[in-house]
């Protein structure tokens, strides 16, 4: 294993120190327990939007802390959910008197720790669970669909609503509407190596890809032959379109996400194909996001996320955001 780290035990803390140094104008890092908080928190009268999860998905979630998006992010160890006391601490540092909305990705550990935190927090707290991954089919016999790329769009849109003064109930309802309208799917060309494990998380042959991966190095639904970019994009887009389903006339945001190790050259190539396939189906791409925003360490691969837009979501997407990873309108 070759990585730019000193010690697997301190990798998250060490990275947080660098993040603090790089973005002290936007955020403040607290280390015990680990919480990344927007620099001007708590913002009086504003609903606090809080998320968190295992590290290794950067810029998610800490990179989205700042004006117009998250008030706090709780980074767990690599691919491990944060603990409930981190979340409780995040709530107490950011609640400006209007309560807090917790955005939780649907993984057993995240759900359990955020659930405990919601029980323990002194503020008024609501939670929403995002589960946009269409790769997990049979929700009755699994832990349910995973929260993946849609999380980034959810945090941006709900963050914008909270910034302009929406109350807690409004933020929660909006979040549920976004969750109901967003679908994702991903593929991997290589596995990733978790620092404290030291070896790749699954085996893939030179000509194979894993379809339906999550973001924790867990294998997907099936291994198939890695074909052309067009075949890869279709393998992701078709199940997404069928699932909601998206139909001709829909207005969408298309998010082409890199898993960490895939160059932008390839992401743009894939994005162009996806835009064409959607145009062919009469679906209007009104907004886009392309880049590595919810990653799986150094994994090569990509995911596609499609969000069915309405006027309010477009307006909130366009609203100013000032965070380490997303910055416009400021």
């Amino acid at each position, binding site marked *: 294993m070759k990585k730019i780290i000193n010690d697997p035990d301190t990798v998250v803390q060490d990275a947080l120190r660098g993040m603090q140094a790089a973005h002290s104008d936007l955020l403040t890092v607290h280390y015990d327990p680990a919480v990344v908080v927007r620099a001007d928190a708590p913002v009086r009268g504003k609903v606090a939007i809080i998320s968190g999860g295992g590290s290794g998905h950067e810029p998610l979630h800490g990179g989205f802390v700042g004006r117009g998006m998250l008030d706090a992010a709780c980074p767990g160890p690599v691919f*491990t959910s944060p*603990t409930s006391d981190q979340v409780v601490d995040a709530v107490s540092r950011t609640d400006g008197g209007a309560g807090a909305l917790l955005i939780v990705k649907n993984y057993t550990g995240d759900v359990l720790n955020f659930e405990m935190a919601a029980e323990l927090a002194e503020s008024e707290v609501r939670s929403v669970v995002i589960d946009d991954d269409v790769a997990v089919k049979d929700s009755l*016999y699994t832990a349910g669909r995973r929260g993946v790329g849609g999380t980034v769009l959810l945090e941006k849109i709900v963050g914008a609503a909270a910034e302009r003064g929406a109350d807690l109930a409004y933020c929660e309802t909006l979040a549920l509407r976004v969750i109901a309208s967003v679908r994702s799917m991903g593929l991997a060309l290589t596995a990733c190596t978790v620092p404290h494990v030291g070896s790749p998380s699954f085996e893939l042959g030179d000509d194979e890809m894993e379809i339906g991966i999550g973001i924790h190095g867990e294998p997907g639904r099936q291994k198939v032959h890695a074909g052309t970019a067009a075949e890869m994009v279709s393998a992701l887009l078709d199940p997404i379109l069928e699932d909601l389903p998206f139909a001709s006339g829909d207005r969408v945001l298309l998010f082409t996400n890199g898993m960490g190790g895939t160059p932008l050259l390839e992401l743009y190539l894939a994005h162009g194909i996806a835009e064409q396939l959607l145009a062919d189906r009469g679906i209007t791409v009104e907004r886009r996001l392309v880049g590595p925003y919810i990653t799986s360490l150094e994994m090569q691969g990509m995911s596609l996320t499609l969000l069915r837009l309405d006027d309010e979501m477009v307006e909130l997407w366009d609203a100013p955001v000032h965070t380490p990873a997303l910055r416009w309108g400021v």
Partner: protein
Amino acid sequence: MGCTAEDVVAALRAAAAVVQEHRDELVRLDQAIGDADHGENMKRGFTALVSRLDTEPPDTPARVLKLAATTLISTVGGAAGPLYGTAFLRASSAVGDAAELDRDAVARALQAALDGVVARGKAVVGDKTMVDALTPAVTAAASAEGTVAATLSAAADAAEEGASSTVPMVARKGRASYLGERSAGHLDPGARSTALLLRAFADAAAKA
């Protein structure tokens, strides 16, 4: 002979040593069907617990169990943190403020721990989780006779058998469930760690 606060501390220290020893095994089991963090998370939690037991050893069995609960909840993360944390918290409540635990109290604590894990994680027997190890352990402890050590030994035997029974199962909870049929043929890491903990408790009780 009952089980004092010191005995519970000793059992937790023994458990921490076993977790340390089996850290790599738990990582490997989790790597096969999950996300390879269970061994590391358990090690982090039990290491933190030992250092708290060193500095502030509580004076009743219930308080020791509660310290274990709060430490694991705040240090383990993942699903195991809240699940084991809830288990120890419920066990702590179940034994009240007695200075010594007899075998009935131990059996009651195990039952409460299982109830807590089921309430928090909503898994049932057959889902390929720690419930598959803990459920038969509780049943065995309830019908065991004799000392605390004998009760825990019966529970550990049943837990080991229960853990083995997870190998052919298809996971329906936790991250392994995303693999569907591909999760069969692997020992569940949570069931394995439950069996390891109960064996460590039994061995410590036998030495007390």
